[in-house]
């Protein structure tokens, strides 16, 4: 085994290179989803396509980072790479996650031999298909979800492959952005290439070749040690996505997780059959979310590489909602199934073993909102993919964070000033949802309300959200978080209504290609997190702080927390004591 200090140094150098590529990407990309949203990551793979290191960017790309490299090698052929190639790939049926997520990978040659790959996975905001933003909740086949690319060369030997570019640009609705974004990705990879060369020069081929397997072993040992501290046994739980955009019925994910010494076996065999709509995930997505859920609880500082995942086996039968069979659609798996699985693993299963390291359910949906059309100011087609922060669930000792992206990913919002400069909308509200957080000893975090009005003759919108019927759950006696609402107010109407009421969409939260007109307004209220522990055990001082901060109303302080406030704002201690006892008895 190489010198452990050298391993540590080498690992941080690999991660560093990934971070450098990420910064270059952020600063040069064209789409707000990249330069503001940061919906991408960068990776280094070894010569077999196994993950060596990944940037601390969006962990939703973990599955693709782990699996798609080997697919690319198999598809392209191990001997078919030459220096200066860049391969593009987004096929969920070949190790991808959902089609907007594009892998660009370039072989890394040193001393005339291929030593590994540099890659990036990024969510391309518009890739064609049946709805602007390529997130159609009404797709029933992958062929409707946009342009599908098996691993093909985008650049060959440093020269752009015009055929590939032309096909891609002809099928995406906003080719200028595709052009700018892909150039940013390729540029960032070339920066990584130079840095990795310098690293090989510094350490030498042999030393690195010897160290990488040791890094894998090191991460594996770390995870095995952490897993063996968990009590052996099989732990089961389930959760659901509330509908698939077609049938008004929930689709359940059922998980039996076994801890056996230093191994974990995660079995999803009892899950529901694959849905007609887009809420399915390929195996890669299910694996990504499973790993992520486990990593939220153990091994959080373990180096992320192929070795870390060896102790974890995942069973997900084909044809179920957790392993979609071709040609099933799956754009929502990455954004909606992932958070559901992550919370199931950490909040309902691992919480049975180590509750102090877990949390209640978060808002649990990416609140995908897509829109596009001809821009009234430029005359060009535009499209945007927007997601929203939700409330996180309460933890053993701390309240859930307000306004946070779902934990399976790690993206930023698009600032309103960027949003309105780029797209024809005018916001009238962007604020937290008071009283939204699930009541608990620690409270669930608050979701966000966004209200915005159309400032164009027409905008075509699509949505893919969840948690509008099934609330984010609390744990250990904690209350549920407030559910999602996705509403529209037609110009001239007084009231906000659901899209089903206003436009007759089958699902109120999963629809595509609704045509809004000037003056129409959209209201998105994102879900809040669940509470942790009985609310009447929340210290009165914390309830008072919440009331003072406007997070909890006086009425809910009384109803949920049993804290009675007098007209002067002070606590009526006797009434509070009595009410809290009553609430506690009511449950007992």
């Amino acid at each position, binding site marked *: 085994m190489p010198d*452990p200090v050298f*391993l*540590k*140094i080498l690992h*941080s150098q690999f991660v*560093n290179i990934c*971070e*450098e590529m990420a910064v*270059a990407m*952020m600063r*040069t*990309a*064209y789409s*707000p989803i990249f*330069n*503001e949203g940061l919906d991408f990551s960068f990776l280094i793979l070894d010569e077999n396509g196994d993950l060596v290191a990944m940037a*601390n960017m969006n962990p939703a790309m973990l599955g693709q980072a782990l699996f798609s490299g080997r697919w690319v090698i198999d598809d392209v052929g191990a001997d078919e790479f030459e220096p200066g190639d860049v391969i593009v790939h987004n096929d969920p049926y070949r190790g991808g996650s959902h089609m907007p997520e594009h892998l660009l990978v370039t072989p890394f040659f040193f001393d005339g031999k291929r030593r590994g790959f540099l890659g990036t996975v990024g969510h391309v905001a518009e890739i064609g298909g049946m709805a602007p933003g390529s997130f159609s909740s009404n797709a029933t086949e992958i062929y409707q979800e946009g342009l599908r690319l098996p691993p093909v060369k985008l650049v060959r030997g440093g020269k752009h492959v015009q055929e590939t570019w032309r096909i891609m640009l002809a099928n995406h609705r906003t080719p*200028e*952005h595709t052009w*700018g974004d892909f150039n940013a990705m390729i540029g960032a990879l070339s*920066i990584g290439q130079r840095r990795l060369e*310098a690293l090989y020069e510094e350490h030498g081929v042999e030393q690195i070749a010897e160290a990488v397997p040791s890094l894998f072993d*090191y*991460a594996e*040992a770390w995870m095995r040690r952490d897993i063996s501290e968990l009590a052996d046994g099989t732990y089961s739980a389930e959760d659901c996505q509330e509908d698939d955009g077609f049938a008004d019925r929930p689709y359940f994910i059922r998980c039996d997780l076994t801890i056996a010494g230093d191994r974990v076996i995660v079995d999803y065999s009892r899950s529901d059959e694959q849905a007609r709509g887009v809420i399915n995930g390929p195996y890669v997505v299910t694996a990504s979310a499973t790993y*992520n859920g486990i990593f*939220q*609880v153990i091994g*959080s*500082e*373990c180096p992320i590489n192929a070795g870390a995942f060896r102790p974890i086996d995942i069973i997900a039968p084909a044809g179920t909602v957790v392993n979609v069979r071709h040609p099933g659609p799956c754009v929502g798996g990455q954004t909606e199934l992932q958070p559901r699985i992550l919370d199931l693993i*950490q909040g309902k299963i691992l919480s049975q073993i180590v509750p102090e*390291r877990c*949390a209640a359910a978060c808002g649990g949906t990416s609140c995908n909102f897509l829109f596009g059309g001809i821009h009234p100011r430029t005359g060009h087609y535009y499209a945007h993919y927007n997601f929203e922060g939700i409330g996180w669930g309460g*933890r053993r000792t*701390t309240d859930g*964070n307000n*306004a*946070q*992206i779902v*934990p399976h990913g*790690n*993206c*930023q*919002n698009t600032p*309103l*000033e*960027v949003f*309105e400069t780029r797209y024809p909308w*005018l*916001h*009238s*509200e*962007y*604020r*937290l949802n008071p009283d939204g957080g699930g009541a608990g000893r620690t409270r669930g975090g608050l979701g*966000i309300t966004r209200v915005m009005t159309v400032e164009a003759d027409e905008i075509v919108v699509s949505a893919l959200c969840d948690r509008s019927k099934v609330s984010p759950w609390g744990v250990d006696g904690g209350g549920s978080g407030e559910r999602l609402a996705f509403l529209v107010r037609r110009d001239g109407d007084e009231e906000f209504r659901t899209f089903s009421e206003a436009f007759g969409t089958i699902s109120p939260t999963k629809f595509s290609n609704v045509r809004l007109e000037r003056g129409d307004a959209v209201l998105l209220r994102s879900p809040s997190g669940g509470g942790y522990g009985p609310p009447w055990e929340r210290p009165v001082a914390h309830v008072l702080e919440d009331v*003072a*901060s*406007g997070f909890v109303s006086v009425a809910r302080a009384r109803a949920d927390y049993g804290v009675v406030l007098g007209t002067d704002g002070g606590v009526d201690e006797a009434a509070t004591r009595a009410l809290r006892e009553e609430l506690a008895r009511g449950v007992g």
Partner: protein
Amino acid sequence: MPSFRIGVDTGGTFTDLVVVDDAEGRRRTIKVPSTPGQPAAAVFEALRRSDVPAEEIELFVLGTTVATNCLLERKGQRVLFLTTKGFEDIPFIQRINRKSLFDIQWVKPTPYVARPDCIGVRERVAFDGSVRVPLEDEELERVVTEVARRAEESPEPISVAVSLLFSYVRPDHERRLAAALRERVPDVPVSVSSEIAPIWREYERANTVIVNSYLRRLVGRFAGDLDEELARRGARVPCLLVKSNGGQIPARAAADNAVNLILSGLAGGLIAGRHFAAQLGRPDVVTLDMGGTSCDVGVVVQGRIRSTTQYEFEWGLPIAVPVVDLTTIGAGGSSIVSFDQGGLLKVGPESAGAEPGPAAYGLGGTDATVTDANLVLGRLNPDYFLGGEVALDAGRAGAAVAAIAERLGVSLEEGAQAVVEVATENMANAIRLLATNRGLDYRRFELMAFGGAGPLHAALLARRVGLAGVLVPPSPGLTSAFGTLAADLRVDRRATRVLRSDQAVDGELRGGLERVAQEALDELGGEAEVRDPLLTLTVSCRYLGQNYEQEIGVTLETDDLVRLTVERFHEAHERTYGYRIAEGVVEFVYLTAVAIQHRDPPPALTLPELGAPQPVASRPVYFKELGWVETPIYRREHLGRDIELGGPLIVEEVDSTTVVLDGQIVRTHPQGSLVIVEAHALEQDELVPAGLEARRA
């Protein structure tokens, strides 16, 4: 007529004061313990010990951590935040991402304002500057009355921060609001986003102006105290403070721009780095200021300090004002050695501070620190740390490091070496990331190392990163204090003006630049007597569609301003990111003017001819490649001009220790700096230290 220049650096542990006696051409240094509760007290104690008569002070400049500590300790004043109605939660929503990927227990940063103190104002400006909801007089009246009521009822003084949507495009509403408030509640200071940070991205702008309000009282009081006390003692010059951008500002003007002092105490080092780099004829250096608890890394490029407007003290709470471009990492002499969950060695960011400090201090610390490791390796002299003022206990250091070595399963010295390697790698990563984030090829940079611990690690660090060499200025432990004296007067003005290169905008671009230039010059003139100021104009450019800009230097001495700007941007983009989009439309976003009144730096030292130096001692020192080697120890003051010595060796002086490795050569520059280079690189002429060129020829 005697005249003295005084520079002060108030650090966490020590307050350093440098006196430059211009008449006699001498300089003196004084070190006193800092008084964190009352930072001004240590300053005047140091001044008292300097025996400089106040009336003979010609210049008094101070770098302060008052604002820094106020933010870190969360001791600022209560802030009322006024913003467009419906958007009061922007400081709480932030950017919705998080610091650590796999930590569901992570707690989001708390804003510097309380939620009930966020007040909505009925008004709305759109992206293009059009007014969608006018700010009516009744609404103005309502808001002003509300602020007055709260100010009245508040048990503590309040400060107002105003940031309305799109105020960087059209500041009218903010200005009316501020004017009304200043008239009605003159005692309540008002900070306005379109004045403090007229940039797009509402959260970043809001947080910046909130921080300004949050800091106002403490900074104002500290600056006021200094100025008054200095005057009371008979000084005829005002007290100046170092700004985060590396310029100086009169103390009396500091409160209104409090946010501009957040890096005041850290900028001195970088300024000194530039000063000594210029003295040595080096255009490009990386500065490394390593003290007890942390290590600040900065860059000087083409003789200039870079600045940035993206800075976060706490993750997720951005402060968007110009600051010298620095990265701070938790790697100092007192950084604690531990193991991560996977059993690998980890150094910092936890620190043993000054008390108990490293185990070797014998003040009760038992954790191994970087200083302990250096002591075990023989690199530090237990009897000559801070010139012998602090005795180091090699036994305690050895015991602490032994525990680490045992867990690693290696010998004591190998364990200590591993600690130094990991600490060095942390610094190396900081340098690489800082450089590459800014598109700089660090391999042509030299490392300017100072602070008590900088020169101890510099030789290995430079070798590890592949830097071109190491420079160690005179009195490295007092470099930051010295730097305050080398600071120029500097004003940064910025305006947001979104223009496209494919539209005829030459006149608009020129007009906008002329306006910010005039504003910067006026402000500079208001602060001091100005002769031939240096004016730098930049246009922040991006390809239409990108969201981040690159600052492109421009001149008005051209007939085709737009074409010149676009061409320079293409070149810069290609240089930084490896490609250009030749047919791309370029968007101009920010226009920036930096006005600088250069100050003559203190005169340089001249090393005397002292002949060939003799080591004062030798002792066994451990090196990774060589093992234990009996190594010569030199005293810095014995090294005269034109000395050249081959490593391994150690140079000791009162406030620092310099290590030179095997295969490296150290030379003295006539003006006092040490220059360390790899012996094998000496074949390349450009690496020959400037001062030695003549002799070689």
